[in-house]
């Protein structure tokens, strides 16, 4: 006798099997829709930042769009808190707390990150300003990711052309523990063009994407690519904002994501002396 739930249960088992067999790629980080510039947090300054994204039109099953775990992306609010500190004039350190509220659910822990970021040489010394970024990530599995621990490395490139700043962050991720740990590097990108109009209000265009494993790119329709028109600037008391709506350009992308980032910088005291003007790393 056929139980009426059997086809649905069978579907669930197949979907779960597919998730286990084909690890999702995570190069689009919904907790951090932020393109990194060449400049770092100034020496002795502390920066507190909250990054938020809300998937207003996403996918209805887990493992699709920006949702890499078992929870679906539709209606997900990704809420991150970042504390960074300028160690030297060229290097900053940061820690993150990532939270998320699935559609209709409360906020819960989704992961943590720690990272170092730096800039090489002084601005305008090279034809393109170059920086670096190294991050270790922990994820809450299986709800928010299928990988427990990942390493992310990015070169940071920036070129100022008149009032425009062009920033490109290619991203390379390696799963250290969890599903996909025996695979190679995943590739994604964050990029942006910001126009400096006024200190309180300026426009920009940002781009985020993920293409899959470097040695086995996903079919173009399954990759994720987003374009975000944004506005950014400074509010009273030194509060800085970046707000925008992102539109998915492929079937594999979520359709619409709204992001809102706020940050505040304060001088708290320098641990190290000023970096040497003739130095290039520290």
């Amino acid at each position: 006798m056929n139980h009426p739930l059997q086809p649905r249960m069978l579907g669930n088992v197949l979907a779960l099997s597919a998730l286990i067999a084909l690890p999702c790629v995570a190069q689009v980080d919904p907790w951090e829709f932020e393109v990194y510039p060449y400049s770092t947090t100034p020496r002795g300054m502390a920066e507190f930042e909250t990054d938020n994204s809300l998937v207003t039109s996403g996918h209805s099953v887990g493992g699709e769009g920006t949702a890499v775990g078992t929870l679906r992306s539709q209606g997900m609010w990704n809420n991150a808190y970042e504390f960074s500190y300028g160690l030297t004039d060229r290097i900053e350190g940061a820690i993150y707390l990532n939270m998320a509220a699935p559609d209709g659910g409360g906020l819960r822990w989704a992961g943590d990150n720690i990272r170092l970021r730096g800039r090489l040489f002084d601005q305008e010394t090279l034809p393109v300003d170059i920086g670096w970024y190294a991050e270790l990530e922990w994820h809450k599995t299986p709800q928010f990711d299928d990988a427990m621990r990942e390493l992310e490395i990015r070169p940071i490139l920036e070129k100022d052309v008149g009032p425009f700043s062009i920033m490109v962050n290619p991203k390379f991720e390696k799963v250290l523990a969890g599903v996909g740990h025996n695979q190679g590097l995943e590739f994604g990108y964050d990029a942006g063009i910001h126009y400096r109009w006024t200190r309180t209000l300026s426009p920009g265009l940002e781009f985020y994407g993920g293409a899959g494993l470097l040695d086995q790119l996903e079919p173009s329709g399954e990759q994720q690519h987003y374009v975000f028109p944004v506005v950014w600037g400074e509010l009273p008391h030194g509060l800085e904002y970046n707000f925008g709506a992102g539109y998915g350009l492929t079937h594999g992308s979520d359709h619409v994501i709204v992001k809102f980032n706020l940050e505040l910088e304060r001088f708290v005291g320098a641990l190290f002396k000023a970096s040497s003007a003739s130095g290039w790393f520290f």
Partner: protein
Amino acid sequence: MIYICLPQSRDLLAAPNAKEYSFEIHFSEHHFTPQKLVVPSEQPLLLTVVNSSRERIEFESFKLNREKVVGPEETITLHLPPLHAGSYDFFDDFHQDVAEGVILAK
């Protein structure tokens, strides 16, 4: 065997800039001098900021996309690209009561 040699200074890697015109801005007694700095347009510039005061400042320019903390009695240098003719702001982001200055490229 592969040897990786790290340069000791930026001069070893950086392409030599075209002649940079050098200028100085001083901060003392809670204000910048000069308030209006006239520089040649379309020429690379080397800007030195000397903080002679006992205050910590953050020398910042929105239009030039520069931001750097300058401690008491510290001096910093900033490389600036050739600027189109026009005016470019600078200010102390730590003290909103310090009068803004302007770099005038012409």
